[in-house]
């Protein structure tokens, strides 16, 4: 039996096609409509409301809270201001990524860590000898993501004071009369916010947002829509684009931050942290792999279909699979997820290629199967993100 999120009583009646999926042991909508078009459109056009409660959440308090997190993650937590949010991966001692998530400084000595996977044990192991209290709040705190160009307007009308809230900052405010924490964060690469609310008040917040939002075209949206948006935004997903070093069965399944396009998060001059030595060495040597955007050439894609007497058919939801990437007849990598971008009108993929083939503009080929036959379509390496509207940070 799967667990229900704090918003289940509101989301369940809306899932018209019974398209549920599993996320961290929770039941969550893939889409509310039978297909995600309208939900995706809301992300880029109005506002989409996602239930992201299955995220793991930990409250870390005490004198050494910052020190613990700084020792664990690759970014400099000692410089994290009150009200600031850091997106960061964390690594094992070999510099291989364990998980990625956000560190939010809620007040002087209180931090919240979010992650894809359970990290309680890892936090506890890292906290030996420190004056710190670790509390898991995954079930007691619900989370909603309100994403899209009109998300700010909806929150403001619902009474939340977010007018001055900057990108990757958070504020403690209210929606109608319910105290919430709102961070300007998300997984869509658009203007957007995440709302953190105690479980028992979740439904009140959902109702307020939907009632206010109805005049702004708010649309409850599921994972399929989120997946399209996050690929456009070039945001990686654990267990899809990379694997936790804790779950990897073989070395080849592990990645360093440099190998998954998160080199920018590694502050190798700060105080000691997990994997620092290995990461310094890797930075000096250069990573073996690059994580890149792939822009699949439409004429080439179309031609492979025409050759079989077919019109090109694009996937109607994002795929999560492994597609070999070639250069000059040799496999040089593999794509891990892909989607048709309704916004950019391009067929996009994310993938790993050997570092020699990772420069933007490099011409590669991606395997696609047309009518039971394997073919290769041209694909060009692009810098991520594919889609990066100014409103995201404005």
């Amino acid at each position, binding site marked *: 039996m799967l667990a229900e999120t704090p918003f289940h009583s509101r989301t369940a009646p809306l899932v018209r096609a019974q398209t549920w999926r599993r996320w961290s042991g929770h039941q969550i909508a893939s889409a509310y409509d039978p297909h995600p078009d309208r939900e995706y459109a809301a992300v880029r056009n109005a506002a989409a409301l996602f239930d992201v409660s299955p995220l793991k959440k930990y409250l870390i308090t005490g004198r050494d809270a910052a020190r613990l997190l700084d020792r664990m993650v690759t970014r400099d937590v000692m410089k994290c201001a009150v009200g600031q949010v850091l997106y960061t991966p964390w690594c094992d001692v070999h510099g291989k990524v364990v998980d990625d998530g956000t560190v939010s400084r809620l007040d002087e000595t209180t931090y919240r860590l979010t992650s894809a996977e*359970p*990290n*309680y*044990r*890892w936090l506890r192991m890292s906290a030996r000898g420190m004056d710190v209290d670790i509390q898991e709040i995954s079930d007691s705190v619900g989370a909603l993501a309100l994403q899209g160009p009109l998300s700010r307007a909806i929150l403001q009308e619902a009474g939340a004071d977010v007018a001055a809230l900057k990108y990757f900052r958070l504020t403690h405010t209210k929606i109608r009369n319910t105290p919430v924490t709102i961070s300007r964060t998300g997984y869509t690469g658009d203007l957007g916010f995440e709302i953190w609310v105690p479980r028992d008040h979740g439904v009140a917040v959902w109702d307020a947002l939907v009632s206010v939002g109805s005049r702004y075209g708010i649309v409850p949206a599921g994972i399929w829509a989120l997946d399209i948006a996050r690929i456009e935004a070039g945001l990686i997903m654990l267990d899809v684009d990379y694997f936790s070093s804790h*779950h990897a069965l073989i070395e080849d399944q592990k990645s360093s931050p440099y190998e998954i396009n998160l080199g920018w998060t590694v502050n190798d001059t700060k105080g000691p942290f997990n994997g620092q030595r290995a990461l310094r060495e890797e930075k000096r040597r250069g990573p073996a792999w690059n994580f890149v955007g792939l822009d699949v050439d439409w004429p080439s894609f179309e031609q492979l279909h025409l050759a079989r007497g077919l019109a090109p058919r694009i996937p109607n939801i994002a795929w999560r699979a492994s597609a070999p990437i070639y250069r000059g007849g040799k496999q040089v990598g593999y794509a891990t997820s892909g989607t048709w971008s309704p916004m950019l009108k391009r067929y996009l993929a994310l993938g790993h290629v050997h570092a020699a083939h990772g420069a933007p503009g490099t011409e590669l080929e991606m395997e696609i199967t047309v009518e039971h036959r394997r073919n290769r379509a041209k694909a060009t390496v692009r810098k991520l993100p594919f889609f990066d509207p100014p409103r995201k940070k404005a």
Partner: protein
Amino acid sequence: MTSQRYDAIIIGGGHNGLVTAAYLAKAGKKTLVLERREILGGAAVTEEVHPGFKFSVFSYVVSLLRPEIIRDLDLPAHGLQILPLESTVTPLDNGGYLAGWADPDETRREYYRHSPHDAEAALRFGHLMHHMAMAVKPILGMIPPDPASLSPGDLKGMLKLGAHFRSLGAEHFHQLYKLMTMSSADYLDEWYEFDALKATKSASGIIGTFLGPRSPGSAYVLLHHYMGEIDGAFRAWGFQKGGTGAISNAIASAARAFGAEIRTNAGVEHVIVRGETATGVVLSNGEELYAPVVVSSLDPRLTFTRLVNPTVLPGELVEGVQRFKFRGSSGKVNLALSGLPDFSCLGGNADLAARALRGAFSISPSMEYLERAYDDAKYGQFSRNPYMDIVIPSMIDPGMAPPGKHVMSIFVQYAPHNITGGWDDAKRDAFGDAVIRTLARFAPNIESLILHKQVLTPADIERITGLTEGNIFQGELALHQLFFLRPVPEWAKYRTPLKGYWQCGAGTHPGGGIMGASGRLAAQAILGKQDAA
């Protein structure tokens, strides 16, 4: 008396003997299996002990049966059908329960109730055990090389193993080393904090051995049980439709399809030895049968000291076999029930009960409970409060009992073979009562449901199956009795000092459980397919 000639005669129709027979017959050998009892299967038998109620009398679950045997003998075509046994529920002393379910998310949430730390540790522990099972798995499929030997076959085997272990990587090698040396309690202490979880997991480390969870070496037995593999997935335990006897029958059917002849009610009196060569067998009725290959699937004690006159064997071998530790430590109680037990830990929740009763119940509320159960055995008594592994096969396979009625299989440890004063009817009754009394603490209505009770002490197991001292693995699965030391150094490759006389039972590498591995490897050694050096 008639005399007949065969290419190979297998003594004992247990699952390993049948596997050897099937492989030899498949290779074109005129093969005969001789079983003393009226039914095949040895310790893997299904019997209707009470009218309408079928019991897997001894061995009751399956997981270790080698996939290559299933493929080679096409066992599904001969009746192999393994049904999932999906959960384990441990009733706790505080009236609650700890469950492991088929769904990993659900199991995680359940562990989380007791310890957030352990819920996460279990994920990593599972991955590690997967690696460890992968590490050991190749050893199950090879004739164990002797590291002290310089023969080409042994060197080749050691090189193969060496390369394999190097490929494990340092971290996994270190973990394997720990598993080989530690007690299951100490090893699990490194991973978990919730006592009942540790106790339940450590129970796998004591089954069939005269060890307590704090005895060094028990961690390896833990791993042995993690190697269970169904459809390529490690750590999957299942229940054979029709009971474990149906597995034996499936193997027998495959053997017959390859041309093997199988006789029941055909006990072997002794092996015929001419000089230093075995040439055949004499049955209890005096019938003589001849073959250049005689294979004993019996345990080492019977193979070397009863079937042949030990005086024809080297003294060191006989001495080694005398020292080989059997020490049966477990008993079995089989119940015919008029209805389902009501485990109070499930709190009257009918949905929960319906799911839980399709799985196992582990009576292992704490580490101390298990260790105290061992203490009783150490000093020559059966455990007053024993560890028990309980399944209700009729919940999974309705054909095991009349509609609405049930059979319950209770594996009980410890019940030492060498109980002070020896086993007798009074002690058997007292043992059965202790089991029911313990069970009634957790399922108070159990006594009112019992239609029939079959209590098997190690002495009974020995009397019925022939297993020396009632050891279910044909000898303890302790590190000093495994690999190239099973059953004795120098004779760990299915051969014996007598030409033409071979061994194929669980007393040889890689050991017990319904695995069939030793039966297959013995056949390969006999056929010269693997270098038996």
